[in-house]
């Protein structure tokens, strides 16, 4: 399998000869700078969207299917939490403070930054070969046998061997591909489909989803899927070696062997 970065940046060349001797072959830039920068911008935006999105949801923690839904409509389901609006029947005897103003401002600002960053990453991924080399799995890795063995290894929290750790395995590749090419586009689409003005120009974006309230419900589900991915992602980073993986995504430099 291809290495994450085909050009091994020899750190040793930049370091004085008296530096601790780490063989040059073992040290390399694991992630290209653009991937590292966009990764952390997206992380920051994702947390901003998660916090503000949750805050907005609290003002009406009921979900519906179809075009419309309100307190007089039977919800599809309701999150059993108190609300920041008195009109919502939650079963709680109190109303939370209204935080929707800054939440909405933050939600859309973070969404813009995330979408622009995502576009930059997409363009880079296509033209640098990042997607082809690092994310699209090789045909042989997609067999049920290979995938289920990957999956079993994950479930046992088995650390990858030193050489395998240099490349994403098929399961990793598939999850990243689903996040990048399915979940993110879906969360943007379902978000836009809630905009009254946007759908006035592009009505099919909301009718295809079954209506404005369906779009809101789907936006919620896709967000949950992204949060689940985040949890698994962070757990896997910890299993694989938190320090080395963080170093790899921050400075790009990584030591092949995780030291205890």
């Amino acid at each position, binding site marked *: 399998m291809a290495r994450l970065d085909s050009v091994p940046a020899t750190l040793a060349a930049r370091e004085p000869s008296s530096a601790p001797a780490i063989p040059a072959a073992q040290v390399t830039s694991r992630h290209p700078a653009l991937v590292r920068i966009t990764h952390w911008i997206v992380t920051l935006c994702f947390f901003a969207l998660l916090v503000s999105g949750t805050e*907005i*949801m609290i*003002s*009406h923690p*009921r979900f519906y299917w179809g*075009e*419309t*839904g*309100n*307190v*007089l*409509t039977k919800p599809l389901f309701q999150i059993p939490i108190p609300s920041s*609006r*008195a*009109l919502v029947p939650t079963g709680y005897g109190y109303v939370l403070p209204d935080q*929707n*103003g*800054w939440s*909405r*401002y*933050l939600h*859309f*600002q*973070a*969404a*813009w*930054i995330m979408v622009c960053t995502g576009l930059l990453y997409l363009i880079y991924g296509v033209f640098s070969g990042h997607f082809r080399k690092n994310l699209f799995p090789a045909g042989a890795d997609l067999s049920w046998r290979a995938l289920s063995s990957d999956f079993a290894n994950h479930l046992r929290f088995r650390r990858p061997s030193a050489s395998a750790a240099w490349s994403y395995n098929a399961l990793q590749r598939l999850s990243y591909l689903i996040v990048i090419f399915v979940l993110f586009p879906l969360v943007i689409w379902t978000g836009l489909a*809630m*905009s*009254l*003005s*946007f*759908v*006035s*120009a592009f*009505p099919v974006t*909301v009718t295809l989803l079954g209506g*404005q*309230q369906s779009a*809101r419900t789907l936006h919620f589900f896709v967000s949950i899927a992204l949060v689940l991915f985040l949890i698994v992602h962070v757990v896997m980073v910890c299993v694989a070696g938190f320090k080395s993986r963080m170093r790899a995504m921050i400075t790009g430099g990584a030591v092949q062997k995780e030291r205890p």
Partner: protein
Amino acid sequence: MSNLSRRKLIKAGIAATAGLSGLGVATHFAKKYGLIPPDSGGIWGLGETLTYASQRLLTRHSLAREFPRSMISKPPLANEMAPPSDAFKRLQAGGFADWRLTVDGMVAKPTSFSLAQLKSYPSRSQITILACEEGWSYIAEWIGVPLSHVLDAAGILPQARYVVYYSIAPGWWDSIDMADALHPQTFLAYGMNGGELPVGNGGPLRMRLPRQLGYKSVKFITHMSVTDDLKKFGKGLGSAAPEGGYAWYAGI
């Protein structure tokens, strides 16, 4: 400094200069074509400006979705609101016969319209969604006079850029640009679902903007002012919404 890093520095310098001048040109055109919202200052300015500018470029003339009569929400919803003021109660006791809508500012003839006058203009109806920023929504038939008709009657001046509108409830006011003010679905609504507009839904007269969130559809309209500069109103952010922490443009 090695040659490589000097070259990098020069490249970065050129890129930064190009970026900054590009930004300058973009700002100039954005101002010229009215793509900057009044609440573009402050930390949320970037997101708000991008949202408003893209909406103006993509959706200036698009029509809000309309629905068949069978999709009207039953029973109709009226959301919570502050208790009506004494001024409102007095007018209500008189069956709103003395309700007036005054229009001033950049108009040829500042005018005070009675409800009867507004109802004598050709009435229009639309079956559209009213969606609240909180997440709930309902569909109703809205009956009224297009705002553009009222503005024409008062003789809007060519330099007009915004319409500011006020509720009888103190401190409740908002504003829209001319793209929304002259939009065929922007109504001064006085009827709903075939009857009078109930007080709970903003009766006797409410602004109705089906392409923006509910809070822009201010209830109990008594006064409108046409202007070329929102800085003169309130804290200069465009409306009471940004003063209370909410975005001025609510088409999102």
